[in-house]
């Protein structure tokens, strides 16, 4: 009885000591996860995820309080990148691939109130007081804030127009396959 207890205790102490030494030598410093996640996020502070900005979203992600699919402008690519960094797997088939949109000003209704200009985080709207505003499509990231504040509903979100510069071949129709 005593030998049994003794030898088990001895084994436990031995392994415990060895593991303790090992953990000292193999210590890993935690990466600044939050900063890395924030760098991945678009940084346009659009707030579509429900958090105040990208930094807040990053800390929620790091704390495991948000899903990697939280960012609509980032789409599937970002969700996959976030999931990989977090070491979790996500089902991307559910995430709707949002068609990228840009703001469009209906020039007949715009009254030149300048409210949208103040709300645009990337200065994509230009125009003066009482002058019709216009959108620089190239830097509009489609957050839709301007459309919400426009008092005359002159701004709507439209899909990015297809031009000769961004057109590409569509995927072959799978129904055409195997028949």
């Amino acid at each position, binding site marked *: 009885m005593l030998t049994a207890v003794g030898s088990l205790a001895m084994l436990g102490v031995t392994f415990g000591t060895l593991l303790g030494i090992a953990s000292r030598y193999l210590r890993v410093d935690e990466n600044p996860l939050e900063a890395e996640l924030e760098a991945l996020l678009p940084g346009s502070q659009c707030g579509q995820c429900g958090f105040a900005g990208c930094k807040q979203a990053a800390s929620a992600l790091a704390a495991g309080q948000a899903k990697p699919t939280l960012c609509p402008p980032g789409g599937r690519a970002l969700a996959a990148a976030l999931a990989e960094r977090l070491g979790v797997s996500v089902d991307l088939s559910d995430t709707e691939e949002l068609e990228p949109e840009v703001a469009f000003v209906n020039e007949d209704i715009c009254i030149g109130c300048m409210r949208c200009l103040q709300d645009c985080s990337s200065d994509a709207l230009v125009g003066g007081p009482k002058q019709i505003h216009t959108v620089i499509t190239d830097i509009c990231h489609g957050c839709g804030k301007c459309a919400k504040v426009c008092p005359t509903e002159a701004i709507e979100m439209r899909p990015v*127009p*297809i031009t000769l510069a961004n*057109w590409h*071949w*569509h995927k*072959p129709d799978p129904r055409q396959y*195997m*028949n």
Partner: protein
Amino acid sequence: MTVTVGLSAPYAHAPTSIRRTMGLVLLALLPATLYNAGLFGWPAVNLFVVTVLAALATEAVCLRLAGKPLFPPLTDGSAVLTGWLLAMSLPPWAPWWIGAVGGFIGIAIGKHAFGGLGQNVFNPAMVARVALLISFPVPMTLFVAPRPLSSADAPGFLEGLAITFGGRLDLDAVSAASALGHVKTELSRGVPVDQTLSQHQDWIATLLGAVPGSLGETSAVLLLAGGLFLIAKRIITWHVPVSLMGTLFVLGSVTSLIDPGRYPDGLFHLLTGATLLGAFFIATDLVTSPVTREGQIIYGIGIGALTFVIRTWAGYPEGMAFAVLLMNAATPLIDRYVRPRVFGRTSKGEPLSAKRKR
């Protein structure tokens, strides 16, 4: 703005199709099949027909279950080929249910469970053959001596039906061992290999195929001719058959030189069992073999070596089917690691340096 456009270039196509590929393979198999049908008589013909029909019927049922159209898959020749190859690897006088069960296993489990043509990872015919061999070892190892249709003791048509469908087979009267099996049994009885061979091996008969063996595996000359025809037609390339048979021959020759009493020689390995059928028709199965030439050489060497190992040291006299399945399993890994070098890149995928080579 949505833009609908049709198909992109190229608007030219080589005169190739799956049906043509499969059709040529069947054509290449035809001489050996006809010869062996004559050699083993009506029971062999019955078994062959049952196996091919079972494969086709299973294919039709599986396509229907999967909700896919029956045509062209049913007529592209792939199911017929599976059934055909399976039939050729069965003992010629085996009962009908062996062929039926085999055809079902090959097509349903070996092919359609994975999603049908092109999706399977194992050769369907060999899946069926191995499953049958392990499940029904007795009928699967019962070989008969050749009884050509022209000869007097060949069973007639009705007698053939009785043998295949009625199980009327007088075992002792007809059974004969295949060369590989014979060598193995004799060795286990303490008779050295070289002695067995010198007594019983008729090389001319082996070459022509008038020896006991599987339904379509015996005729070395005709199988070789069919294989060369496929190479000439560019359906298969020389890489798998040559590396496979080369490995088998070298291993057989070397071990035989070391201990002729224990190991049969390289030529014996080449001309007996499933070697030729396997090397030209089974191992070259497009779906389950590697896609690069270099990969195909590795694959062929693997099958040759594993066949040799199983024939020589394991319990079964013939190892080709097992070896094919094992290398099928390794094929995705081979395809993953053996790739051509991309133009303008190193073999690791980094762009070449623009340093001028003058």
